[in-house]
Structures are given as structure tokens and as C-alpha cells.
């Protein structure tokens, strides 16, 4: 009797394995995003750790958070794509740095996501996902969200104590110039989607890039140490589009 049971179990086991290998492509793929924030290659620490900005200034970060939204997967050959609807995720160095999305399984080799909130949602404040106005990311009730916030203590050549306050958002609903697409080639890192039930995408953000590529931003040359709009904010936004994120 025991032998029979073992025999039956082996057959079931064997068949199951075969199914897994050949026919069983899951209907959905779960994509797990996680973000690591670095400063000059070290993971940032918000507890009194001082770093050197590219222009030689010293900086002790206290807060770093931003929104990821409008995540789209694409097949570069066929042009097919899938966009995650209503996906707005607040990534906070002091809080949550990961999230997951699901999409119908298909071959996708390109990923695009945005830093910030699209115009349609930015002023509606309708609390989809992490868009809770209690999250310390609304500028005020009329001007929408901050897309990216970096705050900390700043010092240059023994200057008086100052704060570096970077609040990038979009005060003007008519332009979207700080709402930036980040494109990632999944194929290049062997992370293309296809027949997997789940895949992990570990992204790194190197904060010094916010101050160098393609725009070199020297805080000590600015009129003040707050960047909350205008041309310098646009330069920072271009920098987060170009160099901030990379896929591990």
C-alpha cells in the first residue's frame, strides 16, 4: 500500500514538473520594485551622516522622498506596451522603499516610469495609492504635489549654518517640465519579463547625480540654498531624468 502511494506521488510529482517547464506560463507577473539610495556610493543615512556634494560642499541629509508613477512596460520589437493604471508610489528613505505591481504576463524588455505626478492627477488630489495629502508631499491644497524632496544641512567653506531645501514639483499646471520619464533597458540587465511569475527589479539612486548630470549645480553659486522652482528646479529635474537611477 505504501509503495503504491509512493508510486502515485512520484507520477504526480513528475507530471507537475513537466507542466512547470513547458506549458505553465503564469497569467500574471508580479514585479517587485525596490529602491536603494546612495551618496557617493554609500547607502544614505539620515542620522547625522555628512557627505560631500560634487562641488565640494558638505551636506547632511535629513529627508529624501519622491513619487514614482505611470509605470509602463514595453516590448521593443513589437511595440506592445502595458501601463500600470493608478499606480502612484511614494518612496521615502525614512519609510517605504519598495512596492509591487502585477501585469498580464508578456514579453517586455523596456521599462519606463516617471518621477512625479502627471498633470491630470497632480491637481485633483484624489488620494489614489500613496497620494494621501497627509504624506507631507502636497505643496498646498491648490498647487499639487512635490515630486521629489531632498532636505538637509548644508555648509560651504565654514559658511553659516544653512539648510539645503530641494522641493521639486510642478506649480504650473500648464507645463510638465519637472515630471520626468526614466527609461530602463531590462534586457541589458537580463531582467526582461516573459514567463516568470515574479521578478525583482532593484533600482539604485545615486544622489550626487542630482547635482552633476547633465547640469552641474553648485549650490554656493546660487542666490540661496532653497531650490523650489524656476530654472534650477528644471535643471535638477533633468538630472534626475538622466543620471539618478540605475538597475542593479
Amino acid at each position, binding site marked *: 500500500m505504501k509503495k503504491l502511494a509512493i508510486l502515485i506521488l512520484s507520477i504526480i510529482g513528475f507530471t507537475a514538473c513537466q507542466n512547470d517547464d513547458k506549458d505553465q506560463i503564469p497569467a500574471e507577473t508580479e514585479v517587485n520594485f525596490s529602491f536603494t539610495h546612495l551618496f557617493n556610493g554609500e547607502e544614505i543615512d539620515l542620522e547625522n551622516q555628512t557627505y560631500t556634494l560634487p562641488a565640494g560642499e558638505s551636506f547632511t541629509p*535629513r529627508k529624501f522622498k519622491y513619487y514614482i508613477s505611470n509605470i509602463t512596460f514595453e516590448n521593443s520589437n513589437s511595440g506592445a506596451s502595458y501601463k500600470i493604471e493608478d499606480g502612484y508610489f511614494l518612496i521615502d528613505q*525614512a519609510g517605504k522603499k519598495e512596492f509591487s505591481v502585477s501585469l498580464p504576463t508578456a514579453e517586455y524588455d523596456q521599462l519606463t516610469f516617471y518621477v512625479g505626478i502627471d498633470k491630470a492627477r497632480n491637481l*485633483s488630489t484624489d488620494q489614489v495609492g500613496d497620494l494621501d495629502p*497627509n504624506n507631507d508631499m502636497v505643496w498646498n*491644497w491648490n498647487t499639487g504635489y512635490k515630486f521629489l524632496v531632498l532636505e538637509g544641512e548644508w555648509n560651504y567653506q565654514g559658511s553659516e549654518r544653512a539648510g539645503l531645501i530641494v522641493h521639486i514639483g510642478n506649480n504650473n499646471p500648464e507645463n510638465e517640465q519637472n515630471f520626468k520619464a526614466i527609461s530602463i533597458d531590462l534586457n541589458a540587465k537580463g531582467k526582461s519579463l516573459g514567463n516568470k511569475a515574479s521578478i525583482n527589479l532593484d533600482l539604485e539612486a545615486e544622489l550626487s547625480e542630482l547635482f552633476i548630470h547633465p547640469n552641474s549645480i553648485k549650490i554656493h553659486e546660487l542666490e*540661496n*540654498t532653497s531650490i523650489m*522652482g524656476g530654472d534650477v528646479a528644471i535643471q535638477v529635474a533633468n538630472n534626475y531624468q538622466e543620471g539618478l537611477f540605475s538597475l542593479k
Partner: protein
Amino acid sequence: MQYAILNYLGCLSVCAMSWACSTGEGEKPAPNNLVLTLQHPDYFPNDIPMPADNPLTEKGVELGRMLFYEKQLSADGSISCASCHQQSKAFTDGLQFSKGVNGASGDKNAMSLANLHWTSRFFWDGRAKTLEEQALEPISDIREMNLEIGEAVDRLQADKDYPEQFELAFETDQISPELIGKAIAQFMRTLISGDSKFDQWIKGEIELSSTEQAGMELFFTHPDPSLQIRGGNCGDCHLGFLTSGDRNGLLGFHNNGLDNDDNLNQGLASVTGKNSDRGKFKAPTLRNIALTAPYMHDGRFETLEEVLDHYNEHIQINSNLDILILEASNEPIKPREDIKLHLSPSEKEAIIAFLHTLTDEKFITNPKFSDPFK
């Protein structure tokens, strides 16, 4: 601008229909003791779980309310929690420093008790990690109720009613400090203030006056003179609908420039041991702020006008001053100048008008929060 507000209100009136919210988890159903869900406006954050080891229950809250008003918990039977946390004053006492037994005086202003489920770390210096832990401290503090906690347990155990009340609430008539803390914490969690004029505006039930509206916008805005954005910079610390500090770790503690380096009170540093936390205190909720004078951790300001004047023109520079205060002004900041917000008198008046919309008459008269012995 108006479009944004309308759109926003549209959403919130829908949200407000689902008023109740379930946060209970891990509860074990006890006979004759209903597990309660915290009733609160749906636009308060909904993702904060109830402590798994202290679910809110009908009998627990009832017992907690009795203990909150119980004078036996002070050495000479003269005061209770409610002596320094009076409902009519949004659970403050109107004094700079509260009076303990034997006329003893502390050195901190009694904090308002409202919406405590949405805050973290208790006391001005954040020394209690949970409300359960907080609830016990004033009982044994020599400057407050001055009753050794073992003696408190003995007194309640010897009482004709309390053992039975604990049995109903916690299924044991063996009273312990832990259970006293749990019961008081349960009652305090029910102290929800969510029906002020501001709430009615959020729900789209009323309009604010133009002054209140202007004050609200100033309240929530960090100023940027280069973009001609004027702001009062209040919302940087008093966040969102709760107008209270950040829940995240110790981020809700700030040095708001009350003193220079030579006179900095330890504040959060007495808990963390870090020099950079000197002079940092909990950002309290501003709900019912018009009822909770005097202001600041040491009650140094008697009126809201004085508070606004402080932020506008009397900030003391010190090495831990919050950078969001350091870098906030409605005029271009010039190096080596005093820190000033440069709000106009009418802007200050508008902010104060908005602060008055946070007064919640139902909260201060709700019979569920009143003295059960009367």
C-alpha cells in the same frame, strides 16, 4: 485654483460617506465585551493598525474612562489625569505648568489629547514609545500624581468595583500596571477630534470665509519669494489634515528656535542622547489650538498672536534650528540677517482665523469623554 479645490472637495465628500473605518486586528472576542472599531473621518490616514495586544473594546474603553477620571490614582486622592487634561480645554489645563499633588509644579505644559492614534512617541520629549507606556508615567511622577504604581494597583484591587471592571475588560480580576496602561490608552485613543469647521470644509459642507481660506493656504505653504509664493510655513511641521507631527520615527520632533544655544532645553536629546536633538520637541496637533493656551512645551506664550510673532520675527538662531524654519522667508534671504518670515499683519490675522476653524465644539462637549462619576 478654484478648479483644484472643487475637484478635491468632490473626492472628499465621497470619502466622507464611508465614515467608519475598521482598524481592529488580532482581537480575541470576549463574552460581553464588544471589540470596537475606531470611528474617525475617512480622510484621516487609514493604514495605522491598532496594537495587536491591546485591541479597542467596549469594556476596555469604559474602564479606561473611569481610570482617567480616578483620583485614587494620585497620592493624596486629590487629582486624576483629567485634572490636567480637561475636556472643555481640549484636554489641557490652561496653566503654564500643571499642578501636581501637594502643589508641586512640573516644567512642561500639559499636552492636548486628541487624535492620538495618528501620532507616535509621546510627551514633549518623545520618551514614551506607546500610549500604553505614556499612560502610566504621570501616575508615578513625583511632580504629578506621585503614586508608586504598585500602590496604585493595590488601591484598585481593594476597590469594590475595579476588579470586576478589569475582569470584564481583560478577563482577569488581577490588576496589573500593564492593564491599567492598556485601559487608559484605549480611552485616550477614542478622543477623536474630527468635526471642526475645517472638517466641515473638507467634507464640502460649508465654505470658509475668505480670510480663513487665505489663512489655510498660508498655513500649508512653504514660502518661496523667488516664485512669489507666500506662506506661513506651518504645514512643514504640522502636517496634513491632522495638523500634527510626522509619524515617521522621530521626524515629528523639531527645534523651532525658541532659545539660543546657551539656553537650549534638552528636549528630544534627553531620550536619544544626541546633541543634535537638543531643543527639539514634539510638533503637537494644532486641532483645537484656540482652546489650549498657553503654548509651547513650556507654555511661554499666552496667545496665538504671540506664537505667530515668534515664528515671524523672534526666531532664535541655534545650532539645531530646523532647516525648514532657517530657510523660510517671504522675502529674499540675505546672509547674516535675522530669520524673519516677513508675514504682513493681515496675513498673521488670516492664519489665526484659520487656526480658529480647528476648534471642535462637539469634541469638547461629547458626553462619551466626560467624567463618568458625575
